[in-house]
């Protein structure tokens, strides 16, 4: 590692810590590197433009954002609550289970945890805290924790980002997330059951069986979404990126023809909000593209690989270390930055140790999603605190049991690769 590189890393860290947006920090730091290393400064533009131009798979990100916006506008998800009540409401801590079940279904429709929270957060919390049935902080905690399932069960925006840096197949990554996502949901339901018995949370009135068909019918447009998406991808009809566009078209048609509750203004705002999020995440990708170019010409991943080879690490020890590092980083950094910038450094080593890149990607995304609800920097904690009005401190306290349960689930998928790879292999993955 020579001095231009060291200086540019310090500059990126300094810019970032002082509050310059992370994408700009990486671009500015990389320009500094090119300057100090006497390279053509136009390379910064070349790497960003060619990188964006050639990353077709990334188009799934704005399209998934758009479909999530449309689903929020159409209130498609509100009808899921009653359906989930029908399934799990009658158990102790029923509303907590409903919250988690709803997140599982929503996870099959959207690729973003924030979208999940925005769609279901307020209504779930209102329902849980009505007549003081559940403490506000617990309602907020379980809503934030269950939103994390969103990007693990396909579709998933972070897995698209991982596919960009690792060249692993988006389709198989999506499939690999199914079992871990369900495992995470089971872990959370376990904690909810435990808490429900300890604090004597209420049970919901069972819904008579004769009402089931009507409730299912009302929820049908939402329930069909995962079927269309995943069916389309795995039958080979659509690429994951095309599926994202179809999801948005479907959400729009359902809102217009079925629920009839979307105005031209709502549609415009949905488009504009998606464009805004696209620019925000796009800047991060642009920064990562030029910074990763610098990292590559400095051969950092190979240096790390050589360094680790000296320690004679086994594959499982390596994964333990990666997990610990990612969990710590997840407390401090925004998740997509970790995927785009930190993971590329580990990928060559993972490959050399014979770790499957789909397994590696799913466990890394799982880990980084836990980071969305770990303090001090837990994006979902901030959002849920703003939505619910509960103090951050109490939400963090009630979220911690869920975090521990999710770390146990993470340990399982780390040491049992089959938990991730079983389903992709069943459908033809040769890894």
């Amino acid at each position, binding site marked *: 590692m020579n001095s231009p590189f060291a200086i540019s890393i310090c500059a990126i860290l300094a810019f970032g810590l002082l509050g310059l947006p992370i994408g700009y920090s990486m671009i500015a730091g990389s320009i500094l590197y090119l300057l100090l290393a006497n390279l053509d400064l136009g390379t910064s533009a070349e790497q960003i433009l060619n990188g964006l131009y050639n990353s077709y798979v990334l188009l799934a990100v704005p399209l998934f954002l758009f479909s999530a916006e449309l689903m929020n506008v159409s209130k498609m998800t509100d009808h899921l609550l009653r359906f989930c009540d029908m399934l799990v409401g009658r158990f102790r801590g029923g509303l907590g289970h409903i919250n988690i079940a709803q997140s599982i279904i929503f996870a099959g429709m959207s690729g973003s945890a924030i979208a999940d929270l925005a769609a279901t957060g307020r209504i779930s919390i209102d329902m849980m805290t009505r007549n003081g049935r559940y403490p506000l902080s617990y309602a907020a905690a379980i809503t934030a924790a269950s939103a994390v399932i969103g990007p693990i069960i396909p579709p998933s925006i972070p897995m698209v980002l991982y596919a960009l840096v690792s060249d692993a197949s988006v389709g198989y990554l999506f499939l690999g997330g199914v079992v871990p996502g369900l495992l995470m949901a089971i872990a959370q339901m376990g904690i909810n059951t435990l808490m429900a018995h300890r604090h004597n949370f209420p049970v919901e009135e069972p819904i008579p069986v004769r009402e089931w068909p009507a409730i299912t019918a009302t929820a049908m447009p939402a329930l069909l979404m995962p079927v269309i998406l995943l069916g389309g991808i795995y039958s080979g009809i659509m690429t994951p990126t095309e599926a994202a566009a179809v999801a948005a078209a479907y959400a729009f048609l359902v809102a217009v023809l079925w629920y009839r509750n979307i105005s031209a203004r709502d549609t415009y705002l949905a488009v504009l909000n998606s464009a*805004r999020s696209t620019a925000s995440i796009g800047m991060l990708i642009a920064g990562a593209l030029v910074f990763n170019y610098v990292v590559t010409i400095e051969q950092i991943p190979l240096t790390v690989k050589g360094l680790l080879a000296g320690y004679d690490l086994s594959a499982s020890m390596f994964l333990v270390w990666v997990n610990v590092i990612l969990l710590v980083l997840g407390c401090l950094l925004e998740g997509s930055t970790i995927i785009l910038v930190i993971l590329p450094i580990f990928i060559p080593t993972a490959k050399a140790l014979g770790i499957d890149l789909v397994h590696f990607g799913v466990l890394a995304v799982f880990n980084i999603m836990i980071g969305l609800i770990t303090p001090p920097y837990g994006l979902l904690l*901030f959002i849920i605190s703003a939505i619910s009005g509960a103090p951050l401190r109490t939400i963090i306290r009630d979220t911690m049991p869920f975090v521990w349960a999710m770390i146990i689930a993470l340990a399982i998928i780390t040491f049992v690769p089959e938990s991730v790879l079983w389903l992709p292999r069943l459908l033809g993955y040769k890894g």
Partner: protein
Amino acid sequence: MTRETTGRMLAGARWLRRRAENFAALLLLAMFLCFILQIVTRYVFNYPLGWTDEASVVCWIWCTLWGAVFVLREKDEVRFDIIYSTASARTRCVLTVITGLAAMVLFGIALPAVIAYVTFLKVERTAYLGVRLDYVYSIYVLFSVGVIVRYAGLTWRALRGQPPDIQIGSGSAL
């Protein structure tokens, strides 16, 4: 400057921002429609189009870079805000001046090379639509200039004691 002129300038700035938002929304919508067209022609009419792929990628690049400078507000940006959000207004101003100057200087130094790179591409054309690549990539020049102007504005305001308004934990797509 009289209050009336300031008011008129602010109204003008708001009008421009709304037009910038219209354009970003249009780009996203165009990208989406290209995809739908592509899927329909391929699977319904069995007549795959090549240009839709290209057009949607161009819309994505423009939407990202255009949106980044003309649509995103400070609070939409993904940043590490643990230090920034706990700092006093005065410290925030100092931080904004430091990072603003750094961004202006570095993007400014790179600008001539960026322009040279983009204009050099006038000999190349995109595969399907045959659009000159320097036109497609010209958005990056606009982006670079926009970043410099924007950070000049933020630095100027911070020097006069107005730090940018950010929200904790804002801006992400996860």
